[in-house]
């Protein structure tokens, strides 16, 4: 029985995300848009205007088209858009041959269209990055036309680099080896050679001429004034030329850059310069200057090495290049990418590596161009979704701001037969319709044909299809980007590689302040294990970021993980997350204190040791009472005064029972039960290991080493308890007695059964601790529940358990098998210490079931809404509501059982009179006063609450039933966490009542509609918890609340009508409508209780009952 305790009015012990956890992620929220360092956390979407969307059906994409698709880009979760050149140009080099720096190519629209685009992008929080191609112009540019006609040596001529001979600058390499044979080209008009590093139609500007720089700065200001946030500086290493050098990265070039930066900083503090310098990291480093040149620069060598690492199934290439990467100034950032509009350049690899890359990725000669491969990501990865995802996960987690090339988010293909690099510049594939939905022009008019092959063609790969498929690349990418946004450590964190023995695993940590993210990637095509040395983060809990699952905490030993083929994990190493509930610590921490015993338990009692040990015994006892017990109890969930310091825990009563010590210490005014066990390593290693998580101290007696631990985890102890209960044993304590009381159910166990029982699961709850006892042959058999706080009085759980099992024969509760009672001298009533119940096989409690259901529902709903699919209204929750009908029926039957007279005065129903209702109202009103006083004293001014007078009026307004009604015993703390699901049916557990009320209260007879009210409130809690979880996954969802509201009201309705039917004729009410007033009153009572509970225990959750109260009061007003 994986029961939850009655910690909260609604299932607190099972409640989902740790509030602290949410706070942590909220704290790491993305930077505000005005942050001048925005580019450090940016994810940039690289797009070509002509390739994205055609609005005027001329076959070429344009700015209006791009603007109309901005919603798509924003929804993807990126933060900036980088536009390839869109200036007027003869388009001999895809726009990099600019013929007018201040215009927009007429094919793409007008400057007005561009301005509109920038406005719309800003509205969506997107930054805009454009190209500043200033190394060269087109030969059509007026500057060049003027220069070639101007006489040699004249001012105009001097804008370009001229020579009469091709012998100048001989040490300079040729970049486009496939098309150009020299960097000099003869101009027949000028009768001289002009200098060009790229195509011969792209003459290089002469930056030694100050007028050129002035002109460039004017262009920069022109666009910056229009709202452009960043400029990619194309071909920046080649600005200046000097004889005798290779004419790359010259100091003169850096001087020019510093001037450009200074000019920009003077007017535009939050803009960004991105250097395109296809160089080794140490040569790129100068482009950052001392933070006074470019803000960003491409990390070219990393890109091919990520491909190489996957091809070689070895982390070495990536680790090596990152070690070679120098540190950059605080305000600078790398730009990293997998693919772009050019070929996958292999300039930055050794020739051996290049051969390897060609063999692996471009066996087809057609795919090679210059020193690179002209393919897109998906074909490079052979369309293997796992590999594509792995590559993206590396990109998104490596230091730097990632750049996504348009189309790669849906895994678009390429067409290597299109010439030059046009194969990766084909139209964006929106739909499976004509022209991929990109344009309605005749197909032959398109600037390039869309990809049409059966694997990557637009009929197979397109946005429309992927948006509707929850597991598509597109939706996966959105999810990844949402996760990446949760932490700044991805953009800004320090990178540390781990060096696990398995070289197929790439593992690294990104750290920013206290935040640490562990990334683990399996580069191999087969599943791989890995052991990671994470000692440094001992005690932290890895939380997998995509699914928010907590993993077992890190410890001293290597952390073992297994990864599927090409799998990867991102873990947040959380300091504030709870380890998984089932996790058991198997290693003692170094700090565990050591006790030296000399005579087992006797060592703690001065009157039970030989004369010369008395002093030692007194010291040991003092350590137990002032150090070990306080330390242990103070940290337990069941300690009711959590947070209060525990100075001492004197043993008020105790008994050494068989091999165990029943310690009953008094802690801060309350008595607790702490059964203790000693286990010795030499003889009982297994036992020691099982007790590790519950250890108070290590102990040593002579050469024997062992542990002193909470006996609840000790199998032999639990078995001994079962035996003692079945055997009706008794034990005298120092100041009282322990009574072991069986019920008839005990007859089901033979002695040998007891011996075979094993402790299978341990649950620590807020008021109790419980263990499942399993037998290897028969499965789970028994359930032992240890009430930690000693409360004298009739325990409602055992009383009700007996009544329902033996008298009412109610089948949907857990049979009671026995209990252990503690009779203390001077106390009238015994206290129930331990309850033994039969185990009911189940699939967990209703709370977790409901939350999981809602998670799934919201996830489905989200993916459906992306595709704009209408969710069928009627039967969305059909299966769930059927289950709720069953729950309501069982609830009704439970109340029927309570409403039947049996002759037992503790249980017989009594008529509910006017006076009863009046007294009840008075009590609720007193509680309302108390609640408001408490909230006022705790400074909860930020929460929205209805005025107190309104609440009091609402209480008064609840009509008493006109017909006869009954007050009976009932559950008292009924919520989704108190029902277990088993075979599509429910078992009702935990008849303890609300834990913070006195025992007597839960035995009081009142209208059982209080249980119904509790369940209704629980639905409300489930709604809010699900919303919090869904928002964590994707904060942009806004329509969820409406969906959840609809769910809650349907669930309520269903539950109430089924309950009314099931409780019909019990006498609890004459007819259900007559009892609505009582139900409303009960709901108000419950929500007030919740307010007090949350204020005292979980202030982060108080918005749930406060919203609930407002809703109830408002609902009644209608």
């Amino acid at each position, binding site marked *: 029985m994986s029961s939850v305790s009655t910690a909260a009015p609604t299932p607190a012990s099972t409640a989902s995300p740790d509030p602290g956890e949410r706070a942590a992620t909220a704290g790491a929220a993305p930077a505000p848009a005005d942050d001048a360092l925005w580019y450090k956390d940016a994810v940039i979407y690289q797009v070509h205007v002509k390739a994205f969307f055609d609005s005027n059906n001329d076959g070429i994409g344009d700015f209006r088209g791009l603007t109309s698709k901005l919603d798509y880009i924003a929804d993807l979760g990126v933060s900036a858009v980088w536009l390839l050149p869109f200036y007027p140009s003869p388009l001999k080099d895809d726009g990099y041959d600019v013929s007018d720096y201040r215009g927009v190519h007429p094919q793409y629209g007008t400057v007005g269209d561009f301005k509109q685009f920038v406005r719309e992008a800003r509205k969506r929080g997107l930054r805009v990055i454009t190209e500043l191609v200033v190394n060269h112009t087109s030969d059509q540019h007026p500057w060049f036309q003027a220069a070639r006609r101007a006489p040699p040596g004249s001012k105009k001529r001097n804008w370009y680099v001229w020579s009469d001979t091709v012998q100048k600058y001989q040490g300079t390499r040729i970049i486009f080896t496939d098309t150009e044979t020299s960097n000099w080209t003869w101009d027949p008009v000028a009768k001289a050679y002009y200098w060009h590093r790229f195509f011969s139609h792209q003459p290089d500007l002469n930056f030694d001429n100050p007028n050129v720089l002035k002109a460039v700065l004017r262009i920069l200001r022109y666009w910056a004034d229009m709202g452009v946030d960043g400029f990619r500086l194309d071909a920046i290493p080649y600005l200046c030329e000097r004889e005798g050098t290779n004419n790359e990265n010259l100091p003169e070039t850096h001087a020019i850059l510093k001037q450009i930066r200074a000019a920009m900083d003077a007017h535009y503090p939050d803009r960004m310069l991105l250097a395109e310098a296809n160089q080794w990291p140490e040569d790129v480093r100068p482009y950052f200057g001392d933070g006074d040149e470019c803000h960003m620069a491409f990390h070219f060598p990393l890109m091919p090495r990520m491909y190489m690492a996957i091809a070689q199934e070895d982390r070495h290439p990536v680790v090596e290049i990152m070690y070679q990467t120098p540190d950059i100034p605080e305000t600078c950032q790398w730009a990293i990418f997998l693919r772009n509009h050019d070929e996958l350049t292999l300039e930055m690899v050794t020739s051996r590596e290049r051969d390897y890359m060609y063999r692996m990725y471009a066996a087809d000669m057609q795919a090679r161009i210059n020193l690179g491969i002209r393919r897109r990501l998906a074909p490079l990865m052979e369309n293997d979704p796992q590999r594509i995802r792995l590559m993206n996960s590396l990109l998104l987690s490596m230091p730097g701001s990632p750049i996504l090339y348009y189309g790669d988010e849906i895994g678009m293909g390429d067409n290597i037969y299109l010439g030059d690099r046009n194969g990766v510049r084909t139209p964006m594939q929106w739909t499976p319709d004509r022209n991929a939905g990109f344009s309605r022009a005749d197909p032959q008019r398109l600037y390039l044909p869309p990809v049409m092959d059966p694997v990557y063609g637009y009929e197979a790969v397109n946005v429309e299809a992927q948006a509707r498929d929850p597991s598509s690349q597109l939706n996966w990418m959105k999810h990844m980007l949402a996760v990446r946004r949760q932490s700044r450590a991805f953009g800004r964190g320090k990178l540390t590689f781990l060096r696990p023995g398995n070289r197929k695993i790439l593992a690294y940590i990104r750290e920013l302040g206290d935040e640490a993210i562990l990334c683990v990637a399996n580069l191999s095509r087969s599943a791989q294990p890995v052991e990671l040395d994470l000692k440094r983060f001992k005690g932290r809990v890895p939380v997998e970021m995509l699914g928010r699952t907590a993993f077992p905490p890190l410890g001293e030993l290597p952390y073992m993980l297994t990864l599927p083929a090409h799998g990867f994990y991102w873990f947040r190493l959380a300091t504030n997350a709870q380890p998984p509930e089932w996790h058991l610590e198997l290693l003692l921490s170094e700090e565990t204190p050591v006790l030296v015993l000399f005579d087992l338990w006797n060592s703690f009692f*001065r*009157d*039970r*040791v*030989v*004369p010369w040990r*008395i002093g030692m015994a007194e010291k040991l006892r003092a350590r137990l009472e002032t150090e070990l017990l306080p330390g242990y109890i103070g940290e337990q969930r069941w300690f009711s005064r959590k947070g209060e310091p525990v100075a001492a825990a004197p043993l008020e009563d105790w008994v050494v029972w068989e091999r165990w010590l029943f310690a009953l210490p008094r802690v801060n005014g309350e008595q607790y039960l702490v059964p203790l066990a000693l286990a010795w390593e030499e003889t009982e290693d297994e036992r020691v290991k099982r007790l590790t998580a519950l250890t108070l101290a290590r102990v040593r007696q*002579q*050469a024997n080493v062992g542990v002193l631990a909470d006996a609840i985890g000790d199998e032999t102890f639990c078995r001994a308890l079962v035996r003692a209960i079945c055997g009706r044993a008794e034990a005298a304590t120092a100041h009282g007695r322990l009574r072991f009381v069986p019920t008839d159910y005990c007859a089901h166990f033979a002695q040998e059964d007891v011996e075979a029982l094993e402790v299978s699961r341990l649950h620590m709850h807020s008021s109790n601790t419980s263990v499942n006892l399993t037998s290897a042959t028969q499965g789970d058999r028994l359930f032992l529940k240890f009430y930690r706080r000693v409360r004298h009085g009739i325990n409602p759980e055992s009383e009700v358990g007996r009544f329902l099992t033996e008298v009412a024969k109610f089948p949907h509760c857990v049979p009671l098998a026995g209990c252990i009672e503690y009779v203390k001298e001077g106390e009238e009533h015994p206290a129930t210490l331990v309850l033994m119940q039969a185990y009911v096989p189940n699939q967990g409690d209703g709370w977790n079931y409901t939350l999981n259901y809602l998670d799934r529902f919201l996830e489905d709903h989200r993916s459906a809404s992306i595709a704009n699919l209408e969710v069928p209204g009627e039967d969305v929750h059909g299966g769930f509501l059927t289950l709720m009908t069953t729950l309501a029926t069982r609830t009704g039957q439970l109340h029927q059982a309570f409403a039947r007279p049996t002759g037992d005065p503790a249980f017989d129903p009594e008529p509910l009179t006017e006076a009863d209702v009046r007294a009840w109202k008075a009590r609720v009103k007193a509680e309302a006063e108390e609640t408001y006083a408490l909230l006022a004293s705790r400074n909860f001014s930020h929460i929205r609450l209805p005025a107190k007078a309104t609440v009091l009026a609402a209480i008064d307004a609840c009509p008493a039933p006109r017909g006869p009604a009954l007050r009976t015993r009932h559950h008292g703390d009924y919520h989704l966490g108190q029902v277990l699901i088993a075979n599509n049916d429910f078992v009702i557990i935990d008849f303890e009542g609300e834990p913070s009320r006195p025992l007597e209260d839960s035995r009081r007879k009142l209208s059982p509609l209080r249980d119904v009210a509790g369940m209704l409130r629980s639905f409300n809690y489930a709604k809010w918890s699900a919303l919090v979880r869904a928002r964590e996954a994707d904060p942009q969802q806004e329509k969820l609340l409406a969906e959840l509201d609809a769910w809650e009201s349907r669930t309520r309705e269903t539950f109430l009508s089924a309950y009314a039917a099931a409780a019909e004729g019990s006498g609890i009410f004459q007819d259900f409508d007559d009892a609505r007033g009582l139900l409303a009153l009960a709901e108000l009572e419950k929500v007030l209780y919740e307010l007090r509970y949350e204020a005292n225990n979980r202030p982060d959750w108080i918005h749930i009952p406060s919203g609930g109260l407002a809703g109830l009061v408002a609902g009644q007003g209608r």
Partner: protein
Amino acid sequence: MPMDFDTVLLEPLRVFLRQVGDLLPRLVLAVVVLIVGWIVAKVVRFAIERGLRAVNFNVLTERAGMDGFLRNGGIESDTTGLVALVFYWLVILAALVIGFNSLGLTYITDVLRSVILFLPRVLVAIVILAVGSYFARFIDGAVAAYFRNAQVQDADLLGRIARTAVLAFVILIALDQVQVGGDLIRQTFLIVLAGVVFALALAFGIGGRDWAAELLERWWPRKR
């Protein structure tokens, strides 16, 4: 012979009465001493018992196995009670000695005095037994643990032998203390000890002949 009557009959009576008159106060005194002694004895018994229990003497004798031994012998009280009882009787006897002494019954006094002198020996013997037998248990545990760690089989047996040996000595010392048996026991013990040593020597001698020969050969190799 009136005077004769006087001297013959009345004089002895007078003397007797005078003697009685002399004795009576002494008798009263003796009775008072006895009563006071009895009360003191009760107080002493109570105080001794409380005192011994306060220093956990009862735990010591219980662990030593003496209480169990006494219980098996049908004695209701434990060793602590027994010690207190001895003190009780010591005070009672002292009171008796004083009482009888005041009556001038020196012969009885002598007898009682020798009993009184014997009782402290009993006390000391009890303490020796208690501490000694606890010690014997401790030796048992230590020896057994040592041999167990040395991977010797029969470690428990060796421990028990050590305990028995220590216990034997303790009993002898205790007997010596109360001067019971004296020479007879001492000689018997010597004979038994000699027998055991002889038996061991013989056993090792015969059993380890070859080993001894080897050892000798190694130390003093025979010249060929």
